[in-house]
């Protein structure tokens, strides 16, 4: 087992925890954080595989991908937080309830 | 695009365009709408006349347009389509006059006449379709354009009827679709003109072909109202009278029957179909339908409902003739396509007249109505007697050929079916005639408003079509009669499918 494999295993763990979090946690902020953890797992995985060839320099491609990914993750988080705040503002809820009780926009 | 190739599109286009134009007319523009309607109908008759002359001179009209890989949109004029297109052209003209009179002063006329025209465009397309796929396209198009007509009144009852109608026809269309696609996979896009090419299919695939045949007939059988696929027809009679007239005489029911003719003769080829062994079951099914429809008709008190069940029975004559595998039976079947049309349209016109003028729907209320509406009931009588099969009215000619066809094909039971059906026809038509002419009126009629028993627009069409029914039988042996045409077509069909 090499170092990158160790980190890869950790990445997968993080990914699963994040997934579990999004699904199970009810509070929206927690869901947001879980999504970030999930993303963190994915990124960690990418960075770890950049070292898969165990030569001196890391593969730059996964690094570039992660960098892009981080920006995207941030945007998603910002959007999610904005929506969360808006939901709280309009309904007072902090969870994704009432899946059936849809009212049409007016 | 040459003149010859434009002709079929023009014929379909006249009614389509008329329909579209009418949609966008304001409700008030009554005169313009009537003019447009009659103009469209008249123009179409002219075009039909042109292609009749042209075809007789040996010209070929064909319009081909590749749609997707593997199938063409093909309109083509052959003798069979000529027969059907003439029927629909003429009857459309008459029905348009009738409909204008019938809907005087009612709501949503633009919508009605728009769909009305489109419906005819669809049935013209069915007539002119040159291959199975084009046929299917128009077949479905017909379903769609008739639905608004069936629900036109907008009452709960008519909506329910429309729903039932749709369930049946769309299901039928889907089944037909599977059959058409399957056939296309197996042999590709075969034009109607290459009838009998399926005969060269390797015997290995014959089971598949039988399955395809069953699918096609089941799909078409819904519109042709073969038992047990007929349930929509008696329900759909809530539609306004001109619609029922059109549905039962030209458009929907006929489309199914015409499709069966096409499938048996122009897709499978009758000898091949016979060798597959699918014709006898079809004949039996048609016979059951004939008897069943008549039996049910007897118990109906609502005039239009009785006529609807009668249609179920009568249309299956066409199927029966097709399935007989004999040239005489084919003649009978083809000629009945026309004869049933003109007679049934007369009956519905008359039923509509009675309903519209006096507000009567039930036969039990129609005692002595012949005294109040002699012309209408006269036309009704001619058509009804024709339906029973009394010479010299058109219906007799069909029955004559069908029965002889049955004997020719070695199926003597067909004669029994026809005779029983004639008896039953008499059993449900004659009481109406008796009530109308010989019973004492059980109520006093609303007095005539004008010189005529009802408005001229309502009176002229049934008289014309009743005249047709009489003439078609009386002059059956002369040139240019439906019978002569049917005979010619039957010979062609048999010639082309060895």
């Amino acid at each position: 087992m090499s170092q990158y494999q160790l980190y890869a295993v950790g990445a997968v763990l993080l990914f699963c925890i994040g997934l579990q979090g999004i699904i199970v946690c009810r509070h929206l902020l927690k869901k947001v954080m879980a999504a970030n953890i999930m993303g963190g797992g994915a990124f960690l995985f990418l960075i770890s595989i950049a070292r898969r060839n165990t030569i001196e320099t890391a593969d730059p491609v996964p690094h570039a991908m992660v960098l892009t990914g981080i920006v995207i993750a941030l945007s998603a988080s910002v959007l999610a937080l904005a929506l969360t705040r808006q939901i709280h503002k309009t309904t007072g809820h902090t969870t994704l309830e009432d899946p059936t009780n849809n009212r049409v926009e007016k | 695009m040459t003149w010859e190739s434009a002709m079929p599109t023009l014929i379909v286009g006249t009614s389509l365009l008329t329909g579209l134009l009418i949609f966008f007319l304001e409700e008030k523009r009554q005169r313009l709408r009537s003019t447009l309607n009659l103009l469209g109908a008249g123009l179409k008759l002219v075009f039909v006349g042109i292609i009749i002359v042209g075809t007789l001179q040996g010209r070929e009209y064909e319009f081909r347009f590749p749609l997707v890989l593997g199938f063409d949109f093909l309109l083509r004029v052959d003798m069979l389509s000529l027969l059907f297109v003439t029927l629909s052209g003429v009857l459309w003209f008459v029905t348009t006059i009738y409909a204008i009179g019938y809907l005087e002063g009612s709501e949503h006329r633009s919508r009605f006449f728009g769909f009305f025209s489109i419906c005819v465009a669809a049935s013209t397309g069915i007539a002119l379709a040159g291959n199975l796929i084009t046929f299917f396209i128009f077949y479905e198009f017909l379903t769609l354009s008739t639905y608004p007509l069936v629900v036109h009144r907008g009452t709960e009852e008519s909506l329910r009827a429309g729903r039932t109608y749709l369930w049946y026809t769309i299901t039928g269309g889907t089944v037909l679709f599977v059959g058409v696609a399957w056939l296309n996979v197996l042999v590709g896009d075969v034009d109607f003109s290459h009838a009998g090419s399926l005969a060269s299919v390797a015997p290995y695939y014959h089971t598949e072909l039988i399955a395809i045949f069953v699918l096609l007939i089941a799909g078409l059988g819904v519109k042709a109202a073969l038992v047990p696929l007929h349930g929509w027809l008696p329900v759909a009679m809530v539609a306004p009278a001109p619609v029922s007239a059109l549905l039962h005489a030209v458009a929907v029911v006929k489309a199914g029957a015409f499709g069966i003719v096409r499938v048996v003769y122009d897709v499978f080829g009758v000898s091949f179909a016979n060798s597959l062994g699918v014709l006898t079951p079809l004949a039996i099914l048609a016979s059951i339908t004939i008897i069943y429809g008549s039996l049910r008709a007897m118990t109906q008190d609502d005039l239009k409902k009785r006529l609807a069940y009668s249609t179920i029975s009568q249309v299956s004559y066409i199927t029966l003739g097709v399935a007989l595998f004999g040239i005489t039976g084919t003649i009978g079947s083809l000629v009945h396509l026309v004869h049933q049309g003109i007679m049934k349209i007369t009956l519905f016109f008359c039923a509509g007249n009675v309903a519209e003028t006096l507000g009567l729907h039930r036969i039990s209320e129609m005692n002595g109505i012949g005294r109040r509406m002699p012309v209408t009931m006269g036309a009704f009588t001619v058509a009804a007697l024709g339906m029973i099969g009394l010479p010299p009215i058109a219906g007799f000619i069909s029955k004559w050929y069908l029965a002889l066809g049955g004997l020719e094909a070695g199926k003597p039971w067909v004669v029994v079916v026809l005779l029983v059906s004639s008896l039953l026809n008499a059993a449900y038509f004659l009481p109406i005639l008796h009530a109308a002419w010989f019973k004492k009126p059980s109520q006093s009629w609303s007095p005539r408003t004008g010189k005529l028993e009802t408005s001229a627009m309502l009176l002229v069409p049934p008289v014309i079509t009743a005249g047709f029914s009489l003439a078609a039988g009386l002059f059956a042996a002369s040139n240019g009669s439906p019978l002569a045409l049917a005979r010619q077509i039957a010979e062609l069909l048999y010639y082309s499918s060895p």
Partner: protein
Amino acid sequence: MSWVEWAFDGVLLLGVVGLAFGVLVVRDLYHSVILFIAFGLLLALGWVRLGAADIALAEAAIGAGLTGVLLLDALHAMRVRGGGRVT
């Protein structure tokens, strides 16, 4: 690689996973957010270990820092509006 490095990587990963788990398990949201920021920083440390120092910097700044701040802000806003603890 020496066993020290192995041990360090192992502990680091355990910490990251543990923090991630903690973020989701802790009841108090505030604690949760704090744990999340710590998680981000520790994760960045791991990336440094994998030879991606520049990316790690970005993660520390964006993933842990900016996102953390935004979370805290949102939490605050919700507490103020909601009038108390939000769990």
